[in-house]
């Protein structure tokens, strides 16, 4: 397994090189994982990505580097200390830096000769392929898939120039991942929504959720989806509710700040029982916070957002696979229970790309309306399971209503104390059904574990790897439990494993340990300690291991 860092200023084209390189590597059979770190600006500053690749499953980034591709000097200064022995720093010849690991290429000059200084990075990408003993056989396809036609020729040439400018240095890895998919968490989520029958997506641009909208927009004509940029997030969610009421599967997506503006309508979805999927791609708060960084600090917010009480479901995405399949499930649960389902992603997961097994479309079926009652149609009929017959207005002779006030079975405003209680109870009954749908957290490790690490969402990859590392030296003393379904909280496996554990530690990308608080509230379990990170950068497996080892020393 190798790990490369590609860095430069915003606007220098780091993204393009990374995209070409990760695809080339994957096409050569590697498993690839790319994490993206960038600033909230359009030009200048310092952006970088790390590409990890190899012939085993990779699900997270790493601190250790085998090489740096530096589009500017800053990149070298910031990251050179992380390069392992035997690693390299690739940069332009003009940079005055000497040493055994330094690989200089005349990228700038060569790219200017080619006629476009922006292809300097492509030259570096070509060089990297050679260094790692990879071939360029799929490069035409990759270039053509990634770039606008007018840039094909020059980039193909640039790749070759780079390839020819260095010698192989590292053992070639040969994985079997050639036919797997390589995509970002947000793309996987968007694709999942399409597979679930999405017809209407409304959103207001907001990092890091925008890639979902961009992907859906790019496929809107092919896939028959309306992507509507709303005037604000309040409009976005109310549009989604209007579309869903009218029978088009609808989703809205945003980050925490936009979610804040959607809070009132979230409750509306709850009382009016209009199915809705809401995506919150988390970033560090409060307020504007760190717009392009990562954090898991909206959990407590989204599980209790909006005045009053109503059932909702919150699913945290753990990885790129989840991003696809759980999004589909979110739509199905939203419709089955006529509730809002909130999907929690974050910048780390949303913007990183990973290699996943091709998505399987078997078993994904569109559910259809099944109202067959005779007699009077009651939109909010009091039923055993709390779910009332939902019809689509205009698709039936019955009249369909929807109401944000407390209402009776017809959907008419009521002030009756009795009906109020019946309606609250009816809605809350859906929680019984939901309880049966819950998926237990994923357990990673050996059953002989002594320390149980508990996390949720995107720390999945780092935790999985941390357990592997810890167990290889500490003989299976570690295990991890990572929650996907998080609210309502599935408790069985947790209580089971916690009972066996000598020590339980919550591992979260926030400052207050929100999952630990939720677990204590719901189960009484108290964690022995916490590994928390809240600097806007995702923890690596090495970070977790280091924290555990430093604690052990204390």
């Amino acid at each position, binding site marked *: 397994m190798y790990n490369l860092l590609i860095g430069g200023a915003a606007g220098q084209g780091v993204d393009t090189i990374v995209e070409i390189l990760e695809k080339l590597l994957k096409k050569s059979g590697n498993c690839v994982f790319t994490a993206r770190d960038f600033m909230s600006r359009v030009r200048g500053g310092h952006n970088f990505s790390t590409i990890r690749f190899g012939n085993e499953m990779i699900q997270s980034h790493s601190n250790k580097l085998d090489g740096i591709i530096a589009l500017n000097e800053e990149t070298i200064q910031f990251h050179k200390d992380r390069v392992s022995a035997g690693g390299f720093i690739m940069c332009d010849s003009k940079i005055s830096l000497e040493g055994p690991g330094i690989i200089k290429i005349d990228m700038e000059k060569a790219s200017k000769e080619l006629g476009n200084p922006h292809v300097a990075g492509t030259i570096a990408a070509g060089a990297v392929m050679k260094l790692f003993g990879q071939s360029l056989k799929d490069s035409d396809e990759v270039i053509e898939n990634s770039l606008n036609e007018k840039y094909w020729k020059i980039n193909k040439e640039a790749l070759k120039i780079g390839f020819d400018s260095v010698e192989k240095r590292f053992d070639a890895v040969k994985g079997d991942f050639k036919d797997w998919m390589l995509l970002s968490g947000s793309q996987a989520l968007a694709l999942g929504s399409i597979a679930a029958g999405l017809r209407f997506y409304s959103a207001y641009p907001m990092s890091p959720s925008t890639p979902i909208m961009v992907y859906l927009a790019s496929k809107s004509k092919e896939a028959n989806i309306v992507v509507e940029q709303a005037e604000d997030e309040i409009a976005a969610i109310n549009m989604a509710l209007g579309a869903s009421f009218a029978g088009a599967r609808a989703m809205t997506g945003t980050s925490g700040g936009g979610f804040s503006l959607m809070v009132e309508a979230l409750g509306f979805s709850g009382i009016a029982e209009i199915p809705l999927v809401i995506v919150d791609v988390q970033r560090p708060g409060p307020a504007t916070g760190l717009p392009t960084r990562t954090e898991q600090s909206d959990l407590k917010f989204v599980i209790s957002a909006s005045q009053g009480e109503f059932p909702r479901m919150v699913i945290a995405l753990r990885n790129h696979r989840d991003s696809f399949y759980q999004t589909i499930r979110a739509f199905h649960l939203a419709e089955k229970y006529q509730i809002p389902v909130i999907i929690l992603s974050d910048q780390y997961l949303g913007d990183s790309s990973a290699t996943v097994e091709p998505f399987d479309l078997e078993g994904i079926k569109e559910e259809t309306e099944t109202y067959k009652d005779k007699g009077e149609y009651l939109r909010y009929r009091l039923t055993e399971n709390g779910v009332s017959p939902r019809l689509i207005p205009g698709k039936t002779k019955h009249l369909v*209503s929807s109401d*944000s006030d407390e209402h009776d079975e017809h959907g008419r405003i009521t002030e009756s104390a009795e009906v109020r209680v019946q309606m609250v109870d009816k809605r809350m009954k859906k929680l019984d059904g939901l309880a049966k749908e819950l998926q237990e957290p994923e357990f990673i490790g050996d059953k002989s574990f002594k320390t149980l690490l508990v996390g949720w969402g995107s720390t999945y990859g780092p935790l999985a790897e941390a357990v592997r590392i810890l167990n290889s030296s500490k003989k299976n003393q570690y295990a991890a439990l990572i929650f996907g379904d998080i609210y309502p909280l599935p408790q069985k496996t947790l209580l089971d494993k916690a009972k066996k554990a000598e020590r339980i530690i919550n591992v979260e990308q926030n400052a207050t340990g929100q999952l630990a608080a939720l677990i204590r509230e719901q189960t009484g379990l108290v964690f022995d300690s916490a590994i928390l990170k809240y600097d806007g950068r995702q923890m690596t497996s090495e970070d977790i291991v280091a924290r555990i080892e430093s604690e052990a020393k204390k």
Partner: protein
Amino acid sequence: MSENDFSTYETAWCPGCGNFGLLNCLKKALEELEKSPEDVLMVGGIGQAAKIPQYISANSFCGLHGRALPAAVAAKIANEKLTVIVSTGDGDSYGEGGNHFIHNIRRNVNITHFVHDNQVYGLTKGQASPTSGSGFVTSVQVSGNINTPMNPVLLAIAAGAGFVGRGFVGNPGHLVSLMKQAIEYGGYALVDIFQPCVSFNKVNTYAYYKERVYELDEDYNPSDKIKAMEKALEDGDKLPLGVIYREKLTSYHDRNPVLKGKTPLLDQKTSDAVLKKLIAEFS
């Protein structure tokens, strides 16, 4: 189609309220246009006016205060076969919902927007609304309203609306005709309707409007934007009623390639072939 199709229900309005007249006109307009209740979606926000979807038999969506428009346009986008009518208050439409007002004009989705403009917040017991007159005294505006009143007709024209009308519940025949034109217009149509609130607005009463309103006659050409804005500026002793501005604009559905000439959105699908292709693109 029988008269009873759009039957109405017991209301929670005050006796004498202008909303009753408005509801009757709406019912009449829908009947005269031979709409079927199941094809009509009435959308309101929250307020006294906004309860109107509860009082007429049609599909109904009583959403959040200020948020009727986004829900309504999206319902129309989802199913263009529905006749979508937003009927709600001035506070709802122009106050809390002001941003949706100016931006949905820009979208030009084919829906109709009737604003029950009583120049006051009725349900919350009489505070100034965006259209309340200068100096209007309320329990909150104790020294009289100090904000410049909004001129919704002028604002809608300036925001780019293609159909902007003004009605008065005291001229029901005229109002019915105006409503019908608005519903039949092929884009976003606004009708601002003077609707006296007998409980909280002691200034803009039936008599107040009766003295001032006049119906635009056939000489008036609603397609001249500048003239229309001039007309809209008449807001003192003379208050014009009728279609103040009208222009043919391409509607949202005809501008959106996903919808134009296609089956309604809710009946569309992503084909399996496309889905497989999208997956393959990442391989």
